[in-house]
């Protein structure tokens, strides 16, 4: 704390011609940058560029240490993206971001480097994690939702302010895990299209109850009878395989997928068209959706043959979401039977969103509700090292039959 106060004081002293105020209780990532600088020199862009001009090394380099924001090179055909991963969910609605068990977030960081080459038909990932907890146990608290009851735990609800989990019949990730202790937990990097505008999918609501029955994933032959179709935008998410950090909390993983048809790391699957929808249509407004109830919805992963070309992905904007998942090494993203029970856990940990202009700085995260409603700012601050739930949307004004309040 003393060092941070000193830094703030120094800023005042250096800029006394008239400065903005640097909050002393909002620790600056400049501390970390300067620590890197002391060891590796002061020339940020030269260090980053030198790293990008060489092969992505597996150890934690000075470039990984220094990297403050995404940096891009090249074009659609051949280029690179090198992005830091900071604490927080990748956008996130109902993502629980746990605190590290140690309570210490110093040095907690990840980096992702992607090198793409259309001529070589390659998209090469290099993912590194530093100081992440090894196999953290996840325990969530049931939340109250007046209409969506968890049949397993009908009486265990807490008020929204205390809850870190809501039962969602269309996203049945386990509340607590690992279910089998010996499995432990691991990390998975999701590459996320960040354009909700471009892909739409129909969802079907019961005409009488107005409750969600499913989407085109459940009804591939079209609209079922006695339903109301409503279209919602979605974002494609692509998975790495599970990443297991070593006992020091460090991990390095690299893999290559085809440029012309991007797949998950394992090569078996392409993407899940994930979105956020109201379970009860009366609790949403199509043009101001974040005023209403929103819940994660991830249909099964599509086969590899439906993977999109990487230039298409680039032009939709790329985001990253590192989640904590059950650690069973033989389980692909999507679970044993590829049902919707477990596409992703809803436990966010590290993130960035290079599609946000300037990327997402340390201590902030991209705001998914703001993105959906197209309001600014696109980023919002997150707690520095405490656990928190990202943007829960449990209840909202009713928009059916002229009702505008509960």
């Amino acid at each position, binding site marked *: 704390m003393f060092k941070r106060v000193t830094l703030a004081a120094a800023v005042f002293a250096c800029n006394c011609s008239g400065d903005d105020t640097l909050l002393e209780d909002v620790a600056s990532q400049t501390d970390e940058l300067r620590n890197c600088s002391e060891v590796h020199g002061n020339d940020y862009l030269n260090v980053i560029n030198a790293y990008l001009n060489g092969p992505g090394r597996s150890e934690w380099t000075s470039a990984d240490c220094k990297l403050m924001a995404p940096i891009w090179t090249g074009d659609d055909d051949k280029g690179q993206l090198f992005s830091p991963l900071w604490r927080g969910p990748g956008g996130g609605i109902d993502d629980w971001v746990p605190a590290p068990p140690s309570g210490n977030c110093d040095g907690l960081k990840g980096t992702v480097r992607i090198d793409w080459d259309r001529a070589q038909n390659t998209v090469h990932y290099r993912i590194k994690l530093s100081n992440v907890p090894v196999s953290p146990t996840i325990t969530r608290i049931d939340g109250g939702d007046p209409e969506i009851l968890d049949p397993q735990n009908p009486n265990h609800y807490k008020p929204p302010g205390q809850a870190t989990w809501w039962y969602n019949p269309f996203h049945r990730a386990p509340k607590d895990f690992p279910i089998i202790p010996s499995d432990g937990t691991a990390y998975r990097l999701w590459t996320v299209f960040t354009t909700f505008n471009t892909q739409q999918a129909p969802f079907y609501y019961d005409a009488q109850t107005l409750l969600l029955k499913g989407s085109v994933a459940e009804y591939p032959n079209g609209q079922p009878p006695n339903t109301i179709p409503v279209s919602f935008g979605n974002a494609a998410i692509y998975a790495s395989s599970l990443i297991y950090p070593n006992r020091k909390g460090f991990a390095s993983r690299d893999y290559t997928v085809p440029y012309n048809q991007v797949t998950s790391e394992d090569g078996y699957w392409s993407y899940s068209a994930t979105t956020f929808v109201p379970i009860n249509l009366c609790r949403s407004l199509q043009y101001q959706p974040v005023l209403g109830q929103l819940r994660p919805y991830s249909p099964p992963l599509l086969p590899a043959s439906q993977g999109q070309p990487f230039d298409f992905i680039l032009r939709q904007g790329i985001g990253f979401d590192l989640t904590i998942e059950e650690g069973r090494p033989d389980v692909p993203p999507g679970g044993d039977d590829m049902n919707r029970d477990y596409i992703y856990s809803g436990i966010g940990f590290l993130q960035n969103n290079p599609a946000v202009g300037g990327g997402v700085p340390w201590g902030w995260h991209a705001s998914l509700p703001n993105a959906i409603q197209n309001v600014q700012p696109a980023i919002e601050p997150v707690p520095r090292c405490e656990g928190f739930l990202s943007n829960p949307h449990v209840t909202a004004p009713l*928009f059916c039959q002229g009702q505008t309040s509960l």
Partner: protein
Amino acid sequence: MLNKKNFVRLLAGSLLLGVAVSAHADSNDDRLLRDIFDRAFRFSTKVEFLGLVTNQNNACRPNCPLPDADPNVGRLNFGFNAAQTAIDNSQALFQGHSVMLGVGDIVSNGRACTTCHRPDTRNGSGQVTEELKLGLPHAFPLTSTIPLADPLFTGREADDGAHPQAFDNLNNHGLVGIKPGRFNNVIAWNDPFREVIEWRKVIRLVNTGLTIGFLNDGRMRELQETARGAIFSHPQLFDERFDDLVKVPNPNFPAGPPVFEDRLRNIVAFAETATIDPPALRAFLNPADPTLNPQCSFASGSQCTPVDCQRVTGSWSCDLYTVLVKDPFFTVPVQTEQQRRGRDIFKDQCMGCHSTPNVFGNIEHVPGAPLSFAPKINHTFDVGVAQRNTFNLDFRAFTCTTKPVQGVGCPQKAFKTIVLPLAKMDGSTVMHTVTADPGAASATGRYEDLFRFKVPQLRRLSKLAPYFHDNTAPTLEAVLDHFQSSYYSNSADGRKYPIHLNNSERADLLAFLRIL
């Protein structure tokens, strides 16, 4: 999250230190962070635009393709008569049924697009006496040509919330009080991002379809979104609710599927196609359409010849788009030696920012469909105009002292100094006191975006006065005065793109700018 106690303590501390918290810190660290910020965008310089007609290279946005978008109907929906010679709001889009169920019909304050984007001034025989390029009259005060009973004045409070300086700013400078975050229901009613006010010019509409990022600060990503925001913000008095009246739903919704009436798309089609100037630039709208982008030929009326192709590509065959891209001055009628010298000076000293060939906006943009994560799909610049605040505009909000009542507003207002918490690239939060136009930062919330604005297109420049986002340069000479001043050379982008002109070069450049 911001800590109120520490915030107050720091504000007090800064006052004790004699620190003017409104000024923009500009240390070496800040310059490095700004460079890092700019490198964090994936900018492309390919000549492609994101309009309705040009979606062939992009993933489709909602509701496109738009085969039914009719620019001629759009002209009527914009608020013109069919000949575009006079205001006629009989088919204009500015009021109607709200999508908010239970709200019903919305009645506006009488404003339509043509309230600000006005037709040319004509004499009694119908001849144009003043080209307005779909903007406000050039002469101030505006009341010398527009009656006080015009919705421009009577509906003013919808924008500025009855700010005491607003009438003078509009009447004497042509500036509208804009609150970019006023309808953001995600944040509290008194959040500084909802209350911050900016005094901005009405942009004249030239080559609207050939720009990337809309409004003065580029915060709008595409034209449909821009038009929608304008239609809802300028006629509506209250900020508590954003009443979407363009997409008229089935009144029985949700019992039946929504059906939409999309006059908005007609307006966009009109604005995108009818403002292209000179006409050859229509080839940019859709290079795949041979009616817009013909092959060059010697035929009568062809806008380019095989000789042009040979000159720019080495081949005798090409299309108009290729010539326009390869020869950035192809459509500029350079005739005199002075204009030619001016063109070379422009190329050397101005095209670092005004880089779009034949349009002379800035071509750097994020490729692909407009992203969900707003805003900034273009490259904005700080050239020192905002900090100069030539008109000494008051950037305090004039705002409710208590939470407004829906549909009623607030009973009492007072001035309030706005302090924006801006995210800095190193993760810290800077409490920025707004005493000058924050530029793109008031939309993005990013410290590195302070005082940045979109690079405007320059065609028909001599008809576009007054200049800059705040109308502070009445002439082209005044524009060059600014770019030769310390306000520019000390600005963030002035340092990166220095301009040096002697008197002779300045005269040559002016001669060139006048023929754009």
